[in-house]
Protein backbone atom coordinates (compact mmCIF):
# COMPACT_ATOMS: atom_id res chain seq x y z
CA UNK A 1 0.00 0.00 0.00
CA UNK A 2 1.16 3.46 -0.83
CA UNK A 3 2.20 5.77 1.98
CA UNK A 4 -0.24 8.41 0.84
CA UNK A 5 -3.13 6.00 0.67
CA UNK A 6 -2.29 4.71 4.11
CA UNK A 7 -2.02 8.22 5.53
CA UNK A 8 -5.51 8.82 4.17
CA UNK A 9 -6.86 5.64 5.76
CA UNK A 10 -5.13 6.39 9.05
CA UNK A 11 -6.59 9.87 9.15
CA UNK A 12 -10.03 8.50 8.51
CA UNK A 13 -9.89 5.87 11.24
CA UNK A 14 -7.90 7.57 14.00
CA UNK A 15 -10.09 9.38 16.52
CA UNK A 16 -10.39 13.11 15.92
CA UNK A 17 -9.09 15.53 18.51
CA UNK A 18 -12.15 16.98 20.29
CA UNK A 19 -11.01 20.53 19.68
CA UNK A 20 -14.07 22.35 21.02
CA UNK A 21 -14.12 20.29 24.20
CA UNK A 22 -10.39 20.79 24.71
CA UNK A 23 -10.67 24.52 24.11
CA UNK A 24 -13.47 24.92 26.66
CA UNK A 25 -11.56 22.88 29.23
CA UNK A 26 -8.40 24.89 28.56
CA UNK A 27 -10.35 28.11 29.01
CA UNK A 28 -11.83 27.02 32.32
CA UNK A 29 -8.65 25.56 33.80
CA UNK A 30 -6.44 28.39 32.54
CA UNK A 31 -8.92 30.99 33.71
CA UNK A 32 -9.19 29.37 37.10
CA UNK A 33 -5.42 29.29 37.57
CA UNK A 34 -5.22 32.99 36.66
CA UNK A 35 -8.08 33.71 39.02
CA UNK A 36 -6.22 32.02 41.86
CA UNK A 37 -3.20 34.09 40.85
CA UNK A 38 -5.32 37.21 41.11
CA UNK A 39 -6.42 36.28 44.63
CA UNK A 40 -2.81 35.72 45.64
CA UNK A 41 -1.84 39.07 44.09
CA UNK A 42 -4.59 40.78 46.07
CA UNK A 43 -3.28 39.13 49.21
CA UNK A 44 0.19 40.55 48.58
CA UNK A 45 -1.20 44.00 47.72
CA UNK A 46 -3.37 44.14 50.83
CA UNK A 47 -1.05 42.72 53.46
CA UNK A 48 2.39 43.57 52.14
CA UNK A 49 4.06 46.56 50.54
CA UNK A 50 3.40 45.52 46.97
CA UNK A 51 1.67 47.51 44.29
CA UNK A 52 -0.42 45.97 41.56
CA UNK A 53 2.66 45.74 39.35
CA UNK A 54 5.25 44.59 41.84
CA UNK A 55 2.86 42.05 43.35
CA UNK A 56 3.26 39.91 40.24
CA UNK A 57 6.73 38.79 41.37
CA UNK A 58 5.73 37.17 44.68
CA UNK A 59 2.55 35.94 42.99
CA UNK A 60 4.56 34.09 40.36
CA UNK A 61 6.83 32.62 43.03
CA UNK A 62 3.82 31.48 45.06
CA UNK A 63 2.18 29.94 42.02
CA UNK A 64 5.36 27.99 41.28
CA UNK A 65 5.44 26.84 44.88
CA UNK A 66 1.87 25.56 44.60
CA UNK A 67 2.80 23.94 41.31
CA UNK A 68 5.70 22.17 43.04
CA UNK A 69 3.34 20.69 45.63
CA UNK A 70 0.81 19.61 43.01
CA UNK A 71 3.58 18.09 40.89
CA UNK A 72 5.12 16.26 43.83
CA UNK A 73 1.82 14.76 44.90
CA UNK A 74 1.12 13.66 41.32
CA UNK A 75 -1.86 15.97 40.82
CA UNK A 76 -0.50 18.32 38.21
CA UNK A 77 -0.43 15.69 35.48
CA UNK A 78 -4.10 15.02 36.18
CA UNK A 79 -4.93 18.71 35.92
CA UNK A 80 -2.96 18.81 32.68
CA UNK A 81 -4.69 15.78 31.26
CA UNK A 82 -8.00 17.55 31.83
CA UNK A 83 -7.02 21.12 31.05
CA UNK A 84 -4.38 20.71 28.35
CA UNK A 85 -2.92 24.11 27.50
CA UNK A 86 -4.99 25.55 30.35
CA UNK A 87 -2.53 23.92 32.70
CA UNK A 88 0.68 24.23 30.69
CA UNK A 89 0.45 27.85 29.52
CA UNK A 90 0.23 29.49 32.99
CA UNK A 91 3.48 29.90 34.89
CA UNK A 92 2.48 26.85 36.97
CA UNK A 93 3.07 24.78 33.84
CA UNK A 94 6.58 26.21 33.62
CA UNK A 95 7.05 25.28 37.27
CA UNK A 96 5.70 21.81 36.59
CA UNK A 97 8.18 21.31 33.74
CA UNK A 98 11.11 22.31 35.95
CA UNK A 99 10.01 20.44 39.08
CA UNK A 100 9.02 17.24 37.26
CA UNK A 101 12.39 17.11 35.46
CA UNK A 102 14.19 17.71 38.75
CA UNK A 103 12.26 14.94 40.52
CA UNK A 104 12.67 12.52 37.64
CA UNK A 105 16.43 12.87 37.44
CA UNK A 106 17.07 12.66 41.16
CA UNK A 107 18.25 9.07 40.70
CA UNK A 108 21.32 10.32 38.83
CA UNK A 109 22.37 12.54 41.72
CA UNK A 110 21.96 16.20 42.47
CA UNK A 111 24.75 17.53 40.28
CA UNK A 112 24.44 15.50 37.09
CA UNK A 113 20.80 14.52 37.45
CA UNK A 114 18.87 17.36 39.02
CA UNK A 115 21.30 20.10 38.07
CA UNK A 116 21.88 18.91 34.55
CA UNK A 117 18.29 18.13 33.66
CA UNK A 118 16.20 20.66 35.54
CA UNK A 119 15.73 22.86 32.49
CA UNK A 120 15.46 19.98 30.05
CA UNK A 121 11.88 20.96 29.17
CA UNK A 122 11.67 24.57 30.33
CA UNK A 123 15.03 25.62 28.90
CA UNK A 124 13.68 26.28 25.43
CA UNK A 125 11.11 28.70 26.85
CA UNK A 126 13.89 30.68 28.51
CA UNK A 127 16.02 30.58 25.39
CA UNK A 128 13.31 31.85 23.08
CA UNK A 129 12.06 34.35 25.61
CA UNK A 130 15.51 35.85 25.99
CA UNK A 131 16.29 35.72 22.31
CA UNK A 132 13.07 37.34 21.20
CA UNK A 133 13.36 39.94 23.98
CA UNK A 134 16.84 40.72 22.72
CA UNK A 135 15.71 41.13 19.12
CA UNK A 136 12.61 43.15 20.01
CA UNK A 137 14.50 45.43 22.39
CA UNK A 138 17.32 45.84 19.89
CA UNK A 139 14.98 46.84 17.08
CA UNK A 140 13.07 49.22 19.28
CA UNK A 141 16.22 50.83 20.68
CA UNK A 142 17.57 51.37 17.18
CA UNK A 143 14.25 52.77 15.99
CA UNK A 144 14.21 55.17 18.93
CA UNK A 145 17.79 56.22 18.13
CA UNK A 146 16.74 57.08 14.61
CA UNK A 147 13.70 58.86 15.91
CA UNK A 148 11.17 56.58 14.22
CA UNK A 149 9.35 55.79 17.46
CA UNK A 150 9.55 57.03 21.03
CA UNK A 151 9.85 55.01 24.24
Amino acid at each position, binding site marked *: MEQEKYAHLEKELSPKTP*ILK*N*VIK*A*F*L*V*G*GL*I*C*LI*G*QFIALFYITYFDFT*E*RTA*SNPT*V*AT*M*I*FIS*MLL*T*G*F*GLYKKISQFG*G*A*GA*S*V*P*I*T*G*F*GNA*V*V*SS*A*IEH*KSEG*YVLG*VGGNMFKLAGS*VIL*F*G*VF*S*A*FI*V*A*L*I*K*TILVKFGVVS*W
Partner: protein
Amino acid sequence: MISIYITSFIVGGLICVIGQLLMDVAKLTPAHTLCSLVVAGSILDGFGLYEPLIDFAGAGATIPITSFGNALTHGALAEAEKHGLIGVVTGMFEVTSSGISAAIIFGLIGALLFTSKGNV
Protein backbone atom coordinates in the same frame (compact mmCIF):
# COMPACT_ATOMS: atom_id res chain seq x y z
CA MET B 1 -12.99 45.29 42.44
CA ILE B 2 -14.87 42.18 41.35
CA SER B 3 -14.31 43.03 37.73
CA ILE B 4 -10.57 42.38 37.95
CA TYR B 5 -11.34 38.77 38.86
CA ILE B 6 -13.63 38.39 35.90
CA THR B 7 -11.19 39.98 33.48
CA SER B 8 -8.29 37.91 34.85
CA PHE B 9 -10.34 34.73 34.43
CA ILE B 10 -11.41 35.56 30.91
CA VAL B 11 -8.12 36.94 29.61
CA GLY B 12 -6.10 34.17 31.26
CA GLY B 13 -8.52 31.60 29.89
CA LEU B 14 -8.34 33.08 26.40
CA ILE B 15 -4.54 33.00 26.33
CA CYS B 16 -4.76 29.32 27.27
CA VAL B 17 -7.31 28.80 24.50
CA ILE B 18 -4.78 30.19 22.02
CA GLY B 19 -2.27 27.69 23.42
CA GLN B 20 -4.76 24.85 23.07
CA LEU B 21 -5.50 25.82 19.47
CA LEU B 22 -1.79 25.90 18.69
CA MET B 23 -1.53 22.38 20.06
CA ASP B 24 -4.69 20.88 18.59
CA VAL B 25 -5.13 22.71 15.30
CA ALA B 26 -1.59 23.72 14.39
CA LYS B 27 -0.35 20.39 15.86
CA LEU B 28 2.54 21.96 17.73
CA THR B 29 4.19 20.09 20.59
CA PRO B 30 3.69 21.63 24.07
CA ALA B 31 7.26 22.95 23.98
CA HIS B 32 6.73 24.66 20.61
CA THR B 33 3.44 26.11 21.85
CA LEU B 34 5.03 27.63 24.94
CA CYS B 35 7.94 29.05 22.95
CA SER B 36 5.53 30.63 20.45
CA LEU B 37 3.55 32.23 23.26
CA VAL B 38 6.67 33.60 24.92
CA VAL B 39 7.81 35.12 21.64
CA ALA B 40 4.32 36.55 21.13
CA GLY B 41 4.41 38.17 24.58
CA SER B 42 7.77 39.69 23.84
CA ILE B 43 6.64 41.11 20.50
CA LEU B 44 3.46 42.53 22.04
CA ASP B 45 5.57 44.38 24.55
CA GLY B 46 7.70 45.74 21.73
CA PHE B 47 4.55 47.43 20.47
CA GLY B 48 3.68 48.52 24.00
CA LEU B 49 0.54 46.43 24.05
CA TYR B 50 1.19 43.96 26.83
CA GLU B 51 1.37 46.42 29.73
CA PRO B 52 -2.16 47.74 29.07
CA LEU B 53 -3.33 44.13 29.01
CA ILE B 54 -1.81 43.61 32.45
CA ASP B 55 -3.56 46.78 33.65
CA PHE B 56 -6.79 45.37 32.30
CA ALA B 57 -6.55 41.74 33.38
CA GLY B 58 -4.06 41.64 36.25
CA ALA B 59 -3.02 38.05 36.92
CA GLY B 60 -4.88 37.01 33.78
CA ALA B 61 -2.00 38.55 31.88
CA THR B 62 0.87 38.06 34.33
CA ILE B 63 0.33 34.36 35.08
CA PRO B 64 0.36 32.97 31.50
CA ILE B 65 3.81 32.31 30.09
CA THR B 66 3.38 35.21 27.62
CA SER B 67 4.16 37.55 30.50
CA PHE B 68 7.60 35.95 30.69
CA GLY B 69 8.44 37.23 27.22
CA ASN B 70 6.89 40.55 28.10
CA ALA B 71 8.89 40.91 31.30
CA LEU B 72 12.17 40.04 29.57
CA THR B 73 11.54 42.61 26.86
CA HIS B 74 10.34 45.14 29.38
CA GLY B 75 13.49 44.80 31.44
CA ALA B 76 15.64 45.07 28.35
CA LEU B 77 13.78 48.14 27.11
CA ALA B 78 13.84 49.89 30.48
CA GLU B 79 17.58 49.41 30.73
CA ALA B 80 18.10 50.40 27.11
CA GLU B 81 16.24 53.62 27.78
CA LYS B 82 18.77 54.43 30.49
CA HIS B 83 22.01 53.05 29.11
CA GLY B 84 21.48 52.69 25.37
CA LEU B 85 22.17 49.56 23.37
CA ILE B 86 24.21 47.80 26.03
CA GLY B 87 21.17 47.88 28.31
CA VAL B 88 19.37 45.51 25.94
CA VAL B 89 21.59 42.71 27.18
CA THR B 90 22.06 43.75 30.78
CA GLY B 91 18.49 44.61 31.67
CA MET B 92 16.81 41.47 30.51
CA PHE B 93 16.44 39.63 33.79
CA GLU B 94 15.77 42.74 35.84
CA VAL B 95 12.04 42.04 36.04
CA THR B 96 11.74 38.30 35.44
CA SER B 97 14.22 36.94 37.92
CA SER B 98 11.50 35.87 40.38
CA GLY B 99 9.96 33.24 38.10
CA ILE B 100 13.24 31.60 37.24
CA SER B 101 14.73 31.76 40.71
CA ALA B 102 11.52 30.37 42.21
CA ALA B 103 11.50 27.57 39.65
CA ILE B 104 15.11 26.66 40.43
CA ILE B 105 14.64 26.75 44.20
CA PHE B 106 11.35 24.89 44.26
CA GLY B 107 12.65 22.47 41.64
CA LEU B 108 15.48 21.50 43.94
CA ILE B 109 13.22 21.35 46.99
CA GLY B 110 10.76 19.24 44.98
CA ALA B 111 13.55 16.85 44.05
CA LEU B 112 14.52 16.58 47.72
CA LEU B 113 10.98 15.92 48.89
CA PHE B 114 9.33 13.80 46.22
CA THR B 115 9.80 10.78 44.00
CA SER B 116 7.84 10.33 40.83
CA LYS B 117 4.97 7.90 40.63
CA GLY B 118 3.77 6.09 37.54
CA ASN B 119 0.06 6.16 38.30
CA VAL B 120 -2.79 7.38 36.16
